[in-house]
Every structure is written in C-alpha cells, then in structure tokens.
C-alpha cells in the first residue's frame, strides 16, 4: 500500500532534492502530480501521483445500461471522444453480433479521422507552448475550430459527442457536412506548410527535442506504449492496420513509423499522421454509401453471458474496452485500457538522467490527457 508519507522518507538521501510538479501546473495539462527526485538539475526518479481527477468511471458504468454508459467514455479522453465512443459501440456490437450498415461505417471512420486531426492539432499547439512558443497554439486552434464547427453541425456538441451508438450513429450527416469538409481539406493542406515553417524547421525547437527522452523499441514494447509514442520508436502497433475494424481494411493509408525514439520522432509521427488522416478523409468524402445510418436494434440491449473485448486506435494509442456480462441489462464489470496510462508509465524511464527542462519537452511529446489516465 502506497502512502503519501513514503515520499517524505525518500528525502533521507544526502544531496537530493524532491520537487513536486503539479497537480496545478500548466505544463501537465491537467491535474497530474509528479514527484521528482533531483540531483542538481538531473532527474534521478519520477513518480507520477494519480487520483486527483479520479471519477471511478469504470464503476459508474456498471450501474448504467449499455446505451447509457457510452456517453461517460467521452469524458475520459475528451480530445478523442468520438473514438472512445466508437470503441464502446464496437464492443457491444461484437457481443450482440450487430451488422453495422455501410453508411454508418463510413461516417464513423470520417468522424474518427477528423477527431484524430483535431486532437493532434491541439497537441501540436500545446506541445509548442510547453517548450516556449506561444504562437503555434493559436494557429492550431484556428484549424481545430473548423473541425469543431463540423462536429457541432452534425453531432450537436463540440467536445463530448455521444454520437456513436450501438448499431451505427445517432443521427444522419448534416446536409452541409460534405461541403464543409471539402472546404477544410484545402485549407488545412495550405496551413500544414505553415506548421512546418513555424515549428518543425525551427532550430530552437529541434535542439530542444532531438535526442531528448529516447526510448528504444524493446523498452517501448515492455512498457506497453502504443500509438505515436511506440511508433516513434519503430514499433508497428497501429490497430487500424493490425486488426482492422469498420472499413479501414479497404482504405489506402500508411502506418507512420519513425525510428529515432526521441521527442522529435514522436513529433514527426503525429505531424505525418495528420496528413494520412487527411488522405483517408479525401478518399471517403465523395463515396459515402447511401442507406441507413443505424442498424435496427432492440430498445433494451442485453449482452449474452460472457466476456467481450474490442480495441481501437485513438489519437494517443490503443484503447481497449473489456466487458464482462452476466446476461443483464448492465455490464457486470467493465475495464478500459487507456493509452495514456501506459505511455505515462514510460515517462520515468525516458526522463531519467536528463535535465528538468527536458522533462517538459518529454511530457509534451507523450500527449498526456489526464482524465484518460485517471478515469
């Protein structure tokens, strides 16, 4: 059992300094508390303290029906709420053997990729802001605002959508959807050049991220890293490629792999992923099949007795939903495998031996969303 008093006992080592970063620190993007043991300016150990935003979502889901619990998951990783909802809907469809209509599948993929782009844009701005460049933050939000407006028109909300439901999506696409996405594509293509001019090619940014926070391929696998963090170290782990869901197997896109393993490699993975998401949207936007947007399902869903697992690729990595059903209207036990938690566990390994200023760059490159870690 870990207690707060254990931290105090660590101070006995001569010459070490213990510093608390957070829970109210702007660079932790939420209420993450890091207890850092320093020797001079060099990091000896990092202990993340969780629990400041723990809402016991898993337990909460056990008292909600299969239709109701999906909305809670959009409050976990709020930057990819569509994808979280999608993962839960997939798991329920997996249990009930529901066939999702082709139109709903296309809509889901479109929404997922738009979410991924919006999430990476926010990360791009916030990562630059952590390192000391404030301007990219506003540039990123300009493009993200366009995606949010598209979401607002079709789904009704901007952040916590609850748009994916078991069997399809909640409502059909708004008539303006295709027009607005087609406006967005050339706009973003011209702006991503600016992103590179402003930040990627910037010498100060490169010096602060190249060779910082290196994690090897083997270590990334052993820490359970997924998503851009693992792909930056050369691990093939894209669920869209390895275990395709919906219509991803019919789409042409590359799994982005960088082999550097440092902050800059993780940065480049996300920058190139945005372009891949854009190409997926370009392939799909003109060929959305006609038909139903939702399969016919019963009013009250009852999963058969058993265990169900489904995985999905969020903007941060692999998101898993594990449901144990006893045959009732509510799940008996539910477990979410969130990507942020595993990625955070590698922070200690990455930052050991580097300077405290580099810690902020490393944390920015991990793209942490604290409610996703804490749940």
């Amino acid at each position, binding site marked *: 059992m870990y207690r707060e008093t254990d931290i105090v006992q660590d101070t006995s080592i001569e010459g070490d300094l213990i510093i608390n970063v957070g829970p109210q620190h702007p660079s932790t993007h939420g209420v993450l508390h890091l207890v850092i043991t320093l020797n001079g300016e060099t990091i000896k150990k990092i202990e993340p303290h969780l629990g400041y935003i723990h809402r016991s979502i898993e337990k909460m889901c056990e008292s*909600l029906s299969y*239709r*109701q*619990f999906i*909305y*809670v998951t959009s409050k976990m990783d709020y930057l990819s709420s569509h994808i979280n909802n999608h993962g839960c809907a997939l798991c329920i469809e997996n249990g009930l053997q529901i066939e999702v209509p082709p139109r709903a599948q296309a809509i889901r993929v479109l929404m997922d990729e738009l979410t991924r782009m919006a999430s990476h844009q926010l990360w791009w701005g916030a990562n630059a802001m952590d390192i000391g460049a404030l*301007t990219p933050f506003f540039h990123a939000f*300009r493009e993200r*605002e366009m995606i949010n407006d598209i979401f*607002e*028109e*079709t*789904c*009704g*909300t901007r952040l*916590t959508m*609850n748009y994916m*439901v078991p069997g399809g999506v*909640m*409502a059909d696409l*708004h008539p303006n959807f295709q027009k607005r996405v087609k406006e967005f594509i050339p706009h973003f293509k011209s702006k991503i050049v*600016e992103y590179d*001019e*402003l*930040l990627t*090619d*910037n*010498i*100060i940014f490169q010096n602060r991220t190249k060779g910082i926070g290196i994690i090897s391929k083997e270590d990334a696998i052993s820490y359970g890293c997924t998503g851009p963090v693992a792909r930056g170290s050369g691990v093939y782990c894209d669920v869209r490629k390895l275990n395709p869901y919906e219509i991803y197997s019919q789409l042409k896109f590359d799994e982005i792999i960088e082999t550097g393993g440092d902050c800059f490699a993780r940065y480049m993975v996300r920058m190139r992923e945005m372009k891949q998401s854009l190409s997926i949207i370009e392939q799909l936007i003109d060929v959305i099949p006609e038909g139903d947007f939702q399969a016919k399902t019963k009013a009250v869903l009852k999963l058969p007795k058993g265990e169900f697992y489904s995985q999905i690729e969020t903007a941060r990595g692999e998101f898993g939903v594990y449901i144990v059903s006893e045959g009732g209207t509510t799940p008996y036990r539910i477990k979410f495998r969130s990507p942020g938690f595993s990625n955070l566990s590698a922070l200690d390994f990455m930052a050991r031996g580097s300077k405290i200023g580099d810690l902020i760059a490393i944390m920015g490159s991990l793209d942490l969303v604290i409610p996703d870690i804490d749940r």
Partner: protein
Amino acid sequence: MFLKKYLQDIYYAVKSLLIGMRRTGYYFTHHKEIITQQYPDNKDSLSLPERFRGEVVMIHDENNEHACTGCTACELACPNATIKIITQIDTTPEGKKKKALNTFVYHLDLCTFCNLCIVACPTDAIKMANTFEHSVFDRSKLTKILNKPDSKIRAGIE
C-alpha cells in the same frame, strides 16, 4: 572542417528563424486573416446549428398543447436522473381512466446533453434548444418545469 560545420549550423539556424518570423510578419500585416469573434458584441449575428444541444425543451404549439404522454421513456433513458416525470390519472369524457403528464421536471444542473432522451421519445415531444447562456444566481433556478401551465396533450397522440 569544424569551423565550416559551425558556420553552416549558424546559417541554417538564422534561416529557420527568419522563415518563422516571415510567417509571423504575414499575419501581423494581414488583418483579414484574424478570425477572433468578439463575443458578446456579436450576439445578434451569432448563429448556432439547429442540432446544437443547449437544453431540453418541450415543444408547445399555438394552442398550448404538447405531445408528451408521460410514458417516462426519457426518464429511463437518462443516465443522470436529470428528468423526473410526475403523472396523474385523467378521466376521459367516455369515462375511461388514462395516464397523463402532470409535471415534467428537468434538472439542467445534472444534464450532460447526451441527447439520449430526445432519441428515446416516441412522440417527439421534447427537443434540444439552441440557448446556451445558462448562468443564474441561484442553483434552484436550474430546476425547470418544461410543460407550460394549463397545457394539454394534443388530441390523437397515444
């Protein structure tokens, strides 16, 4: 050799910074690219999409009639117990006893705008409104009664 690389690094560093500064200078001189909205000054021209989830309202027509039968489908669909429906037993002119809506209580402070109640409603009696300025001085004002006083159920809705 070392000196050449050193000077090359400096050259590329200055070049990359100047490219970035050119971008900043472009936005400094192009005021039309500014997209900041001056809320609340632009309140009159502000338009929200029709699907925007502001708050739950009950649709009333000009005769002060609604379509709610008091079936409590929305109450059961709500994950947060935002909606509480109080029903009464009415007697129709033919002498039949019929369940009808008495009070539709809506706790805006508990609502997460998940839209599940709207989807669940079999008679389309409720919808999401576009209002979004919900701040009040007292929390009790967030508990709303959605059916208007003396409103009745529209004829022909079962």
